[in-house]
């Protein structure tokens, strides 16, 4: 009986050791891609060019399949995501490259802007600030260019 108990305890120890090894490996693999959220509140084309350059450079340097990028904008920044935006050609380029462009719907309501006014293909966040908070809580890199 004593022997059986000892064997059971040992088996349990080995099983725990095995589980620990397994648990860390897949998690590390799933986390392999870089995840970056850019926070932009400026309605200034020069700032937007910097942000879009940053995003493109990161994709080129790390490989597009190795990085997930979101640009979240609220406040005056949403003007640059409008259909008539001066950086519209660059927005098209970013969308082609799978960069997520998010406009804050809270700001849109305040500014009386509708989706019909916005550049086609962009995405929306109910609250830009909340989306940024969530991304940081999920472990994304936060950048404020």
């Amino acid at each position: 009986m004593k022997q059986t108990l000892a064997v059971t305890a040992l088996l349990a120890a080995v099983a725990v050791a095995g589980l620990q090894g397994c648990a860390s490996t897949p998690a590390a693999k799933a986390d392999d891609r870089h995840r970056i959220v850019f926070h932009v509140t400026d309605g200034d084309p020069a700032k937007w060019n910097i942000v879009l350059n940053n995003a493109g450079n990161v994709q080129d340097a790390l490989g597009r399949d190795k990085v997930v990028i979101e640009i979240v904008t609220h406040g005056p920044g949403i003007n640059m995501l409008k259909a008539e935006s001066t950086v519209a050609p660059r927005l098209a380029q970013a969308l082609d490259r799978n960069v997520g462009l998010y406009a804050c719907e809270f700001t849109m309501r305040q500014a009386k802007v509708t989706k019909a006014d916005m550049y086609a293909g962009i995405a929306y966040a109910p609250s830009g600030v909340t989306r940024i908070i969530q991304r940081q809580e999920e472990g994304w890199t936060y950048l404020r260019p």
Partner: protein
Amino acid sequence: MKSFLHSLLLVAMLALGSIAQHALADQGAGNNKAKYQLVFHVSENNPQQWQVALNNALAFQRNVGKDDAQVEIVAIGPGLDMLKIDSKAASRITQALDNSIDVVACGETMRATKVTAADLIGGVRVVPGGIIEIADRQRAGWVYIRP
């Protein structure tokens, strides 16, 4: 049966040993790390903005003690201008370097604006990409500061 038990015991001891080793290694890494690790991001080329960033970095270091603070300032885009030899912030940047603050230039920006390492203040470190440097630091647990 006895030999089976012995080998089982051996396997268990090896497994537990490897866990202990990992735990020790983690602890070791923790001990080598400064208590605070801060990465500052500066994209502006105006001396005032740099004054703020450098004041923040030096004051922080003074307040927590040099041994507990590892501080890095990454200059990207227009911010790179202030790391040039003729920069208006040159003396303050040299002061930061003398205080073991790591001042880092974005290689992507250098390439795009045709700036070489010879154009930069001595002691400035060049990395392939400033954004990636900041992303890597955040992944390693550094705190991101955007003055």
